């Protein structure tokens, strides 16, 4: 399955430096609270922390006991407490309770909060209001970027999506800017930045300002170009079922911070094992980007090769055997272990998918993408809801229907919503309100009135007000224009053509040849055109906010095709899926480019939709 590389692909920069930076800063911060201390760690910071340091590192710096933040009264006996947390009101509130409980008890301790990646004024204000400002010292651990693999860097901020796109809170914009700034300082200078989306634009601005505030050093650029994209430019792609191996593993087992826990079902033993999934795993590395239907064939071929390698032993003399054991056996054993693990995973996924009639589900999804037999799709979704099959899956199908059809007909909306509430609980009224707010699941607006009104009003007033009005309108009627975009960009190949998944011809292979992810198609087009020229109609349908900027006034030398120019950093604001990463890797191989994906978090349909739920107290 070796893909032919079109050109000599450039080497990727070494991102392990980012880990060292984060670790060194954490050590520095821990040393700011000298002496023995207990450390409380926010639950979702634990895995990222694991990737850059271990318990020994912490113990070496006088950390006595480690606790997970659980929002319950604490049992620590230490005189010094250190809290390593995300800047969340809920967590700070809990710390206030801890400190005030100590005070009421007449107990004296020293407290330190380390916010990662930064602190928020709202958190400090809470400390002040609770009367413990000053009793508690605060610090920031600028751990913006966690390299998950050679070409994936995550900000590990899953809440970015809800905070920005649903709540309209721009608290993470500067964080995104700072993350870019860090990359720019270490691997830049960048020569070109492309982007689309309001948040991308703001993140760019924030980054640019930070560059100006700081000093610039001349260095050899390792990353030349940057592409920023808002998640809401393309909400269809993350809602599709993933069928590429890595994406499927994420959909079924949930990869957390580059690590997956395989259940006993997979390991065919009585315990689950945690496995790191990255390019270090040679077997995984070869199948991660493959369509699932191709994986079995590959794995069995691999197993046969392995058998042959083992078989070499027969007929060896002692000396040969000795070399074999010392040189090859370990590698073979390792490969054997990995191979059986991935075969186990594939089997287990196969079983799960057969059980839920995956083929029929995919057929419905593809029909939605194609705009074909929509009534049949609706009755399929309806039955899915009626049978109380997975709530998130039902919601996903409803959203896909709405996004691809530019909203549901009012009568369908009403009936499907009613049935959904009957099947999964009436409190999901709140979920529907959220989905509507974000534009994921909406009723069709009668006619095109809004668009017409918008352009008419736009002509009458000046730019400033027009901008505000457009925002207001777009939030009223966020139209996905999926069909028109699909036609314009050829996202949905003709279904009557046979698609050979073994030798993919385009990025559509990540969805069995049914759909080229919009996000990745945009990136391809903009890189090809070196900007947005010729894509005016497309950007208009995507609500605008596109940009392309070049560094400096004399861009002549920037046009020199150095290696760094062929390394493109793509930043997803609001998360990206493993399928999109696979598509970009494919694009990179085709064009002789290397993509580095920076994302606020790895997402998939379930994570994205679960973040819309309001039914936690």
């Amino acid at each position, binding site marked *: 399955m070796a893909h032919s590389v079109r050109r000599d692909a450039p080497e990727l920069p070494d991102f392990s430096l980012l880990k060292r930076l984060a670790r060194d800063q954490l050590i520095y911060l821990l040393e700011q609270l000298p002496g023995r201390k207990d450390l409380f760690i926010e639950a979702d910071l634990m895995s990222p922390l694991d990737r850059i340091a271990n318990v020994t590192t912490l113990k070496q710096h006088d950390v006595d006991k480690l606790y997970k933040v659980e929002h319950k009264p604490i049992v620590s006996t230490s005189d010094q407490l250190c809290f390593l947390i995300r800047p969340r009101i809920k967590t700070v509130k809990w710390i206030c309770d801890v400190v005030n409980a100590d005070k009421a008890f007449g107990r004296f301790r020293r407290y330190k909060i380390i916010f990662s990646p930064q602190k928020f004024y709202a958190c400090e204000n809470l400390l002040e209001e609770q009367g413990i400002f000053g009793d508690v010292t605060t610090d920031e651990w600028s751990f913006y970027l966690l390299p998950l693999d050679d070409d994936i860097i995550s900000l590990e901020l899953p809440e970015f999506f809800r905070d920005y796109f649903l709540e309209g809170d721009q608290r993470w914009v500067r964080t995104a800017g700072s993350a870019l700034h860090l990359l720019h300082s270490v691997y830049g200078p960048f020569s070109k930045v492309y982007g689309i989306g309001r948040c991308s634009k703001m993140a760019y601005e924030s980054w640019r300002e930070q560059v100006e505030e700081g000093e610039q050093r001349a260095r050899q650029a390792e990353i030349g170009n940057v592409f920023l994209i808002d998640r809401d430019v393309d909400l269809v792609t993350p809602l599709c079922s993933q069928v590429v191996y890595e994406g499927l593993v994420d959909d079924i087992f949930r990869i957390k911070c580059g690590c997956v826990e395989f259940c006993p079902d997979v390991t065919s033993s009585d315990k689950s094992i945690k496995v790191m999934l990255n390019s270090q795993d040679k077997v995984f590395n070869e199948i991660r980007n493959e369509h699932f239907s191709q994986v079995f064939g590959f794995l069995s071929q691999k197993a046969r090769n392995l058998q042959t390698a083992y078989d070499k032993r027969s007929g060896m003399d002692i000396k040969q055997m000795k070399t074999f054991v010392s040189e090859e056996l370990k590698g073979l054993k390792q490969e054997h272990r990995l191979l059986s693990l991935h075969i186990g995973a594939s089997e287990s996924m196969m079983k799960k998918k057969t059980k839920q009639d995956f083929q029929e589900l995919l057929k419905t999804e593809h029909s939605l993408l194609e705009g074909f037999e929509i009534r049949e799709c609706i009755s399929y979704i309806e039955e899915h809801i009626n049978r109380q099959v997975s709530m998130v899956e039902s919601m996903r199908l409803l959203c896909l229907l709405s996004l691809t059809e530019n909203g549901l007909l009012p009568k369908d909306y009403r009936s499907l919503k009613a049935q959904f509430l009957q099947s999964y609980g*009436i409190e999901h009224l709140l979920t529907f309100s959220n989905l509507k707010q974000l534009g994921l699941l909406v009723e069709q607006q009668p006619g095109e009135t809004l668009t017409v009104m918008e352009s008419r009003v736009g002509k009458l007033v000046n730019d400033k007000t027009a901008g505000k009005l457009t925002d207001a309108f777009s939030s009223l009627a966020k139209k996905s224009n999926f069909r028109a975009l699909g036609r314009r960009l050829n996202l949905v190949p003709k279904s009557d053509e046979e698609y050979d998944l073994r030798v993919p011809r385009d990025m559509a292979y990540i969805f069995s040849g049914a759909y080229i992810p919009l996000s990745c198609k945009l990136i391809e087009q903009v890189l090809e055109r070196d900007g947005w020229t010729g894509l005016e109609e497309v950007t208009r349908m995507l609500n605008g906010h596109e940009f392309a*900027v070049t560094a400096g006034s004399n861009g002549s030398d920037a046009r020199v095709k150095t290696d760094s120019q062929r390394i493109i950093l793509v930043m997803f604001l609001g998360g990206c899926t493993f399928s999109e990463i696979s598509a970009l890797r494919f694009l990179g191989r085709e064009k002789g480019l290397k993509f580095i994906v920076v994302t606020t978090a790895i997402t998939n349909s379930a994570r994205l939709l679960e973040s819309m739920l309001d039914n936690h107290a």
Partner: protein
Amino acid sequence: MLKESKRAVNSIRSLVEEEDEEDDVEKVSWSGEPVGSISWSVKETESSIRSTGEVRDQSFPKIHTAPSLPKNSSGYSLSSLFKGKAKTGSFQSFSESFGDPSIRNYAPELRKPKSEYKDYVSDWTPEETVKRMQQGKVYSLEKFRSLQDKLLLLDEAVNAHDGNVITAVLIYLKKSLSKEILFRELITREIALRHYIHYLKEIGEQKLLVELFKSMDRTEDMALMQYRDHLNVRDENKKRDFLKNCLSFPFSPDDATHVQDHYTLLERQIIIEANDKQVESSGQADIFKKYPRKASILNMPIITTLYYSCFYHYGESDGTFSSPANIRKTFRISDKQFLLTCLGARAKLKAWFDVDALFTTKNWLGYTKKRSPIGFHRIVDILQKNNAPVQVLQDYVNLVEDVEQKISLAQKYKCHDVIINTYRDLKDRQQLIVYRGKVERGSSEYRKIEEILSNSQLRWKN
């Protein structure tokens, strides 16, 4: 390794922000491109460029389309003029910028003796204040006292796109403005408003939020916001009362119906739960002995409640709250939905007679016929998932209209009779012969095929 990463840490110091405040350079920016240059300043700039070896201009252009206060592209240090040293960048004489009105704001400050300088430190403009807040430096909001100043500050924070700062300013405005005035001003400031709403949600200021929505006529938001609180009520009786109270909120007409359902549902669940718990513990009813309840029915969705009722209360008269018919009517459950749920429950109990009755209709001549609002292939699927025996399954496979589908289902679930009869009816001898090869030699199916194949009366098509 450590060394290398230390070096890198140093190179990105501005991120870490560890400069001493005292020493810090006040960055004051003003508008206007440099029109000329004072030689020393240029030299400074040049030498600094040379020292870093930087030749190419690497600054990126602004792309911002939304209007914001005019900004210069780089910061010029005022305090460095006094202290005689520059920490970052280059600086430029202010005299060049005459003609620029904004210069007048700063010019007097420059002439003050150093001793008085401190008094003016907090005289930062909204833009400077926001910038300092973004950089985590000392700032002061107290001087923004007039409404106009407060709003300028807010607008500047919004222009800087930094949600953290926007919220910080809003916290200050919340403390220093009456809520009526603040609400009024927020109506026209969508971005700030959303930050404010999110902040209030996070700190749990429910009451204020309700007032805010009310003042803005966002009544549906208000209703949903209050309804959301039922999630925090644990006790079922209190929750029921809470939901009852919700009925008067200004929901959209559709949502009002749903909330009414929610209340009615919980009210009934409480009654059913109390009754069934008692019946179960007294051991009066066989069904509970045979199939002890795994969980309480409280707070379950409508369909789960219907399933429960079809499982434990099948055949009760329409009048009782716990009967399937009553639940169906009360919550306007569709025929299709009712059938699916009922089928699931009765099949689980292996009550095949009940299953049969679900589909049986009589016409006026008294003939019975099986009908279903959903395709029979689906029914087969559900029955199979509930481990229905082949004898039951094949009845329904037989009802599948599409012949190909019928055969494929029959093969999947090994309903030999259906397959054999279908091929016979299709007069497809070839397929029948093929199928004979698949069944066990000497079995009843095998004999049946033999019998048919040897029947000379049949006219085969092949």
